[in-house]
């Protein structure tokens, strides 16, 4: 438990770093999202899955997944509305629009993936620890 408490912020930061820095080095939204999701898995293993689930709340993973997909879709449709092609970041026209557009998309992917990893873990682990009422 102590180990997890100590390394959790570092792993979380590494995940965000991989997500943000995917544009300039290896990594990206998918890998970073998985690492961020791993934080929840570690907490679940160390402090008990039920405790972690109650702490995070059942709706957060769903919200993250939906928010990620929506953000990705909207940034694609937004450039069409501004008169460019789908996902043509340069139509947004602000400073380094393409670079920051790609970073934003990576972040959206990271949201989706970390939400899915967390959610899968909670779903598969449900029914453990004698709480069999969830398993039908």
């Amino acid at each position, binding site marked *: 438990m102590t180990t997890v408490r100590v390394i959790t912020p570092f792993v979380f930061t590494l995940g965000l770093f991989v997500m943000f820095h995917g544009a300039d080095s290896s*990594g990206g939204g998918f*890998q970073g999202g998985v690492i961020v999701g791993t934080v929840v898995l570690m907490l679940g293993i160390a402090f008990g899955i039920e405790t972690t689930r109650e702490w995070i709340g059942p709706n957060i993973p769903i919200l993250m*997944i939906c928010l990620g997909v929506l953000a990705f879709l909207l940034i*694609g449709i937004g450039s069409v509305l501004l008169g460019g092609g789908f996902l043509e970041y340069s139509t947004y026209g602000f400073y380094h629009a393409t670079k920051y557009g790609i970073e934003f998309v990576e972040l959206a*992917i990271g949201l989706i993936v970390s939400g899915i990893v967390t959610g*899968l873990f909670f779903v*598969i682990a449900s029914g453990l620890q004698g709480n069999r009422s969830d398993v039908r």
Partner: protein
Amino acid sequence: MIGVLDVVLLAFILGCALATALLRDVLGSIIAFSAYSLGIAVIWVFLRAPDVGLTEAAVGAGVMTILFLVTIAKTSRPSGERTLERIDYRAAGIAIALVAVLSTTLVALPPFGSAESAVLTDEVTRYYLANAYEQTEVKNAVTAVLAGYRGFDTLGEAAVVYAAGVSLLVVLKKQVFA
């Protein structure tokens, strides 16, 4: 060029794969599978594909292992003292035949690290490598292709992940991940 390290790594991966298939204890099998994924991740780095290696290490060796462990916590250990599973020779024969058939394509592959491989000489690859930085201002050409040139494909992948999550909930008749 294949060095000593590659041979050792390949032998390690092959051993882990065999252990995964043959170990009777599921827990041991999962641990062997995790080691196998880690070996594959190192192979990806050797093949200059750090992005793929990172994914393999995070998903294959990390998350999958945890998900498998949580899953087998609901099962019971098979009784008996044997360490290895008994081999089904008919199934093994079919598997070996399939590997033999697939191996015939090996001769068509370019040599390891060859500069004349179809991927490197292809016009699309050259275009991406020459223009990715100027057009997308992103230093990692892989990211430039994934989120820039092929952004629509990546949106499709994101939708697949989303659909997988939703269908899991539908199958389990749940409304939240709980």
